[in-house]
């Protein structure tokens, strides 16, 4: 364990905790705990928005996704930013003008209905939990390269620190922590991008000489009596498996078994490409690339350009380049990136995961298509549309974003803080493109998890940058989780308990109930964070967006802009939105994969439910409101 990363990490976390305890002394009332007394300056609040929003999903997830599937990861950046337009133009000022602690205040303003408070409170809880999962997964991914701890240790660390933060000071400390971290994240990401441009691109990246470039072998093969065998007789064929239209050969040389991907070269000859593999033997032993796994024998880091504008070889380097040149190298169809995909299969009693190279030309990297099959079937196209809809409508319905509108003084401040957020978040999202593509081409990618791409890229430039960026990313997770726990705490203390008790709760009781909720939800998040290890955090956040967009946004928009909205319409819309989105997610191909089932048999053909659940929720509020029109039940 290196000293510097630990030192920087301890400084960051120590500062966060100190801020929490400092503000705890000033937080005695529920308005202080849930809304920072409504006294935060709009610039600070705007940067805190950025801190909240640029969570694990943005820094870890998007960069990781761009590093593995190119432009499809950048779609998240575009969609996440577009969502702020709904927040600015539609939600920001009314939220501050009409609300107090939670978004239920607005829904309930004209009705005083217990049913609205309870459903809105429950929906906030569910969205908060779904949003917490990726944050926890991200935290787990961060501690492994930093300290060498296993994933679950990171999740528990974040959970415990955040529970301490939220149980002490609430929204004031969360705001200042997010302000500092949001600013630092943008500054250090800019520095990382400058390093990328100075280094330029190379076909044989070696992490600045720290890790020598590994040249993967390709060997000739022949087809003899319907059987493929290597031409080089020093390789002995021991097996052949076809999985998802890819054929892999198990070859043995000098007693070491390795897996090779069958392919055809430009002349039409059969070739075998070296892959990486993890084999779990029935005895429990793990083999990595044919040898027992150990600290020295791990999966190799990957990611490089095979050709830069049709040039390849050891000497092919661009030298320092500007951002436009950087992007133009990637859009060139004669630039070839070596990406890696994986497949799992059974070899007798052994469980095998094979990571195999896929060569992708530049014109396919920087346009949608590698993950979202926009050229594919109707359901594949709808999956893409669904994600973009969920991202557009989701931001303005996220509980931890909505509560930040109550921390400023006036509606105009709410608007201005949103603009600060848009400027800083937009700038950061453009940087994700460079960080993701930088990771894709620098030989730093971890095959088992895309989430660590940006921090590992930073590591290739030096331990200090890596330590600082990892600590900031970890602290960002802390802040986002804090915000979500405060939102959940507000929902329970203000909306649920406040509704059911015949005697109104005192300020002190509300704060106490909030802290108990923060603790309980924190524990649930820790457990789920451990269970969801390995899934891309941006993908998981996309699901949380879909639930928020389906459950909350139709209700908020219709309450604000449609006079015929009724209590029953709002309640039905929230219930339908939450249930449809959650059930569709649970029955989607991605979840079937995580259950260990065949994704092809999933009853829902696409992974993001937004395209069904958002319109359905809108339809529900309109139909139910029209069916339940009563004089005193309509917003006047």
């Amino acid at each position, binding site marked *: 364990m290196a000293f510097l990363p630990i030192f920087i990490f301890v400084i960051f976390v120590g500062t966060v905790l100190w801020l929490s305890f400092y503000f705890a002394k000033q937080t005695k009332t529920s308005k202080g705990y849930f809304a920072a007394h409504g006294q935060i300056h709009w610039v600070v609040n705007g940067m805190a928005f950025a801190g909240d929003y640029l969570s694990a999903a943005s820094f870890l997830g998007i960069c990781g996704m761009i590093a593995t599937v190119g*432009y499809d990861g*950048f*779609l998240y*950046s*575009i969609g996440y*930013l*577009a969502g*702020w*337009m*709904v927040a*600015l*133009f*539609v939600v920001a*000022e*009314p939220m501050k*003008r009409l609300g107090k602690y939670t978004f239920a205040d607005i829904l309930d303003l004209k009705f005083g209905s217990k049913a609205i408070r309870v459903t809105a409170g429950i929906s906030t809880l569910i969205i908060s939990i779904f949003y917490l999962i990726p944050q926890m997964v991200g935290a787990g991914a961060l501690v492994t390269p930093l300290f060498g701890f296993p994933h679950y240790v990171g999740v528990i660390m974040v959970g415990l620190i955040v529970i301490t933060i939220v149980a002490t000071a609430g929204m004031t400390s969360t705001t200042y922590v997010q302000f500092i971290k949001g600013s630092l994240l943008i500054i250090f990401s800019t520095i990382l991008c400058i390093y990328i441009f100075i280094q330029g691109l190379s076909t044989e990246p070696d992490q600045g000489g720290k890790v020598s470039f590994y040249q993967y072998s390709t060997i000739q093969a022949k087809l003899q009596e319907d059987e493929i065998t290597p031409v080089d007789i020093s390789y002995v064929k021991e097996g052949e498996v076809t999985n998802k239209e890819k054929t892999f050969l198990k070859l043995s040389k000098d007693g070491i078994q390795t897996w090779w991907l069958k392919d055809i070269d430009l002349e039409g000859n059969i070739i075998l490409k070296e892959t990486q593999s993890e084999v779990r033997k029935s005895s429990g032993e793990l083999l990595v690339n044919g040898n027992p796994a150990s600290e020295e024998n791990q999966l190799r880091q990957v990611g490089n350009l095979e050709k830069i504008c049709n040039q390849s070889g050891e000497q092919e380097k661009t030298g320092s380049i500007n951002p*436009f*040149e950087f*992007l*133009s*190298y990637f*859009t*060139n*169809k004669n630039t070839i990136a070596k990406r890696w995909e994986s497949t799992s299969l059974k070899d007798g009693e052994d469980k095998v995961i094979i990571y195999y190279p896929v060569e992708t030309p530049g*014109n*396919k990297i*920087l*346009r*949608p*298509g590698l993950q979202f099959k*926009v*050229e594919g079937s109707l359901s594949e*196209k709808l999956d*893409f*549309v669904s994600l*973009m809809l969920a991202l*557009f409508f989701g931001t303005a319905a996220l509980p931890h974003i909505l509560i930040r509108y109550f921390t400023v003084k006036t509606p*105009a401040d709410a*608007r*201005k803080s*949103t*603009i600060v957020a*848009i*400027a800083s978040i*937009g700038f950061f*999202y*453009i940087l994700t*493109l460079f960080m993701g593509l930088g990771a894709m081409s620098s030989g730093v990618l971890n095959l088992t998890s895309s989430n660590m791409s940006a921090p590992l890229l930073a590591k290739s430039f030096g331990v200090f940058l890596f330590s600082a960026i990892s600590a900031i990313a970890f602290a960002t997770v802390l802040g986002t989780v804090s915000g979500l726990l405060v939102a959940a705490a507000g929902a329970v203390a203000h909306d649920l308990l406040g509704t059911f008790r015949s005697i109104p709760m005192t300020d002190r009781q509300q704060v106490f109930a909030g802290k108990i909720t923060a603790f309980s939800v924190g524990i649930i998040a820790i457990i789920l964070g451990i269970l969801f290890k390995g899934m891309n955090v941006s993908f998981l956040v996309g699901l949380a967006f879909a639930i928020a967009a389906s459950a909350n946004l139709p209700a908020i928009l219709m309450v604000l802009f449609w006079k015929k909205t009724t209590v029953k319409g709002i309640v039905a819309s929230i219930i339908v939105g939450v249930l449809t989105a959650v059930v569709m997610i649970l029955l989607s191909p991605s979840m079937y994969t995580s259950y260990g089932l065949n994704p092809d048999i999933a009853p829902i053909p696409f992974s993001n439910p937004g395209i069904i659940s958002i319109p359905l929720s809108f339809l529900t509020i309109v139909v139910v409101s029209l069916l339940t029109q009563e004089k005193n039940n309509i917003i006047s």
Partner: protein
Amino acid sequence: MNIKKSDSENMTAYKVRIGMYMILLYALVYFGFIVINISNPFLMERIIFGGLNLALVYGIGLIIFALILALIYNSMCSKKEAEFKDTFSKKGDK
């Protein structure tokens, strides 16, 4: 007090109206991006300028356009708020 309330409501209505126009404009451009992607994805490969393809120009453009719209919206709202303050202080003087 009534004068202030009425002016305040007008100002709020103005800001809501501007907000609606702007969100519709942005949504149009955003959904245009989605439509091109599903109807003619190969168009996204086309180089527009300086080696940048349509996907990059449109995608980064959406981010920059968001900021430009946000600044215009803020400027219009701030102007209206300043007018409201002026009107109210003049009415208060009378």
